[in-house]
């Protein structure tokens, strides 16, 4: 990680830490949304940015996580935060199960199939599958989370919970980027055939990327359910998946700071122009087209790793 990036993260952390002290409840809540979308987009970034798999049904994994939490909490009384890892696990298992047969499909075909999967999940939720999901009304009465005896219910309390999770995610995903797993994903994004030829088990890594991304989306679903206390299929529509896709692409596919910036711009910025609410999406579509024509790589693209001069010299000097 470069020094500039570290400084940016430090400044961002300080600004965000102080933000709830000066902002009113409405704007804190906007930042909470930004945080949730940042988490979702970071999780999608593993699949779409790192592994290069066009997943436009990410809202399905988010929904599975949120509904797992809601069902466990309202039916079995499991404390909401305890359901966090369970939600992640269930979403990951679900992703591994549904992605297994379609993982080998080429780019845009995977895109269409994941759109289909997302829709099937939404329709299943609306149709009250297994009598557990409450149909189109959804589920309500999800308990507020309790942390060390403190009940989290006001926006600025949620702010610290959500953004602490974002910070942890950013740290972990930066570590992941540098790991063997992260490098393998990048390799198979750039050239799957060469990756396979070099002994990267392409199918398995793709599946793992899906499961990991889904796990994080599932855990974000838990936070969302805890914050809203009501969830319904409406919140997990196709457009939600599109929005996440956009955050990743506009910010800079594969780049963690880019995805964070994307979340701020796509979710936060429209709040500044609430007066033009009806024309908001119009401008949004226009920006997408213009940006793709003039800045294909996104706003903060992933920088390729360069070797330092000293490394080169050391390599030359070595026998």
């Amino acid at each position, binding site marked *: 990680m470069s020094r500039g990036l570290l400084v940016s993260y430090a400044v961002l952390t300080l600004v965000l830490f102080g933000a709830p002290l000066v902002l009113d409840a409405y704007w804190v809540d906007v930042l909470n949304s930004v945080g949730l979308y940042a988490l979702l987009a970071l999780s999608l970034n593993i699949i779409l940015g790192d592994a290069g798999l066009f997943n436009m049904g990410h809202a399905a994994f988010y929904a599975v996580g949120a509904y797992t939490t809601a069902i466990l909490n309202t039916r079995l009384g499991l404390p909401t935060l305890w359901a966090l890892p369970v939600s992640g696990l269930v979403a990951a298992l679900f992703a591994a199960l549904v992605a297994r*047969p379609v993982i080998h499909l080429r780019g845009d075909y995977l895109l269409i199939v994941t759109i289909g999967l997302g829709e099937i999940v939404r329709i299943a939720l609306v149709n009250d599958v297994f009598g557990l999901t409450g149909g189109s009304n959804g589920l309500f009465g999800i308990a507020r989370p309790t942390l060390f005896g403190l009940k989290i219910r006001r926006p600025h309390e949620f702010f610290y919970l959500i953004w602490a999770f974002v910070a942890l995610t950013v740290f972990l995903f930066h570590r992941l980027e540098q790991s063997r797993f992260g490098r393998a994903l990048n390799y198979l994004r750039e050239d799957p055939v060469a990756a396979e030829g070099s002994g990267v088990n392409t199918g398995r890594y793709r599946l793992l990327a899906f499961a990991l991304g889904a796990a994080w989306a599932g855990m974000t679903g838990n936070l969302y359910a805890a914050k809203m206390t009501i969830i319904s299929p409406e919140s997990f529509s196709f457009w939600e998946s599109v929005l996440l896709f*956009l955050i990743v692409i506009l910010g800079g596919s594969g780049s963690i700071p880019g995805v964070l910036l994307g979340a701020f711009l796509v979710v936060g910025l429209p709040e500044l122009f609430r007066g033009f609410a009806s024309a908001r999406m119009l401008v949004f579509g226009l920006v*997408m087209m213009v940006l793709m024509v003039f800045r294909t790589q996104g706003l903060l693209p992933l920088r390729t790793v360069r070797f330092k001069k000293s490394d080169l010299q050391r390599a030359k000097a070595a026998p």
Partner: protein
Amino acid sequence: MEHFFQQLTNGLAVGGIYALIALGYTMVYGVMKLINFAHGDLFTYGAYLGMTLLTSFFLQDRLGLVAGLVLLAVMVMGLVALIGAVLERAVYRPLRDSPRLSAVVSALGASIFLQNALMLLYGARVHVYPEDLLPQATVNVLGLEVPLMRIVVVLASVVMMAVLYLFVQKTKIGTAIRAAAIDQGAARLMGIDVNRVILLVFLIGPALGGAAGLLVGLYYGQVSFTMGWLYGMKAFTAAILGGIGNIPGAMVGGLLLGVIEALGAAYLSLAWKDALSFLVLIFILIVRPTGLLGERVADKV
């Protein structure tokens, strides 16, 4: 049995509409390898333009029903084709050599833009077509009372598909389109102006999509600004079912999907109707990714 045949003819009508939209997807995909997400919205534009022209010019009263409707269809197709061509020129041409993903995102942006422009122009509510336009007659086909409009839809889509098929197979320009779909570079070396072929594809596809929109408006009597994406997704499923990039495939896939959906809704479950076509899509991609008549789509890795 009566019920079954009614559902079958209904499925054929809906399938004809899917097939007309699917042709636009499959032609654009064949030549440019791009999923034109905005195509579903061009279909919606066809439906809305048809409604506006119907209520502002009363062509059916001035020229008689048949001539009026034909002229209406020609106007709608021309206007939607124009929108399609503008879209190609402004949005897709600059992205022709960029990564696939940027073109896909740009197409999504175009879709969002078109959809919301329509919403701002017409408002978000559902609009209805003028009633009593066509006589609410039924026609006796082999002892089965079929609504007239259903027959019009089936006939109109079959005629348009046949014309397109002959155009692509028999004419010189059609041959150029097929050549560009196989290999753009080689087509260019043979003296084919690929830019013009692509422009042509973006005229024909949206024209057929617009016609499909008009037919949906006439068939169901009501239109909404978001209807394009569900029809678009189903038409794309139809294109994949038949084998993407393959023109007869889109026709077969569209009709087949329409029938599967109508029968599924009637005999399995109405609530799961929309999920059924997505299940068909996933199933076909797992079992036979080339579609019924098409190219290979899975990487062997």
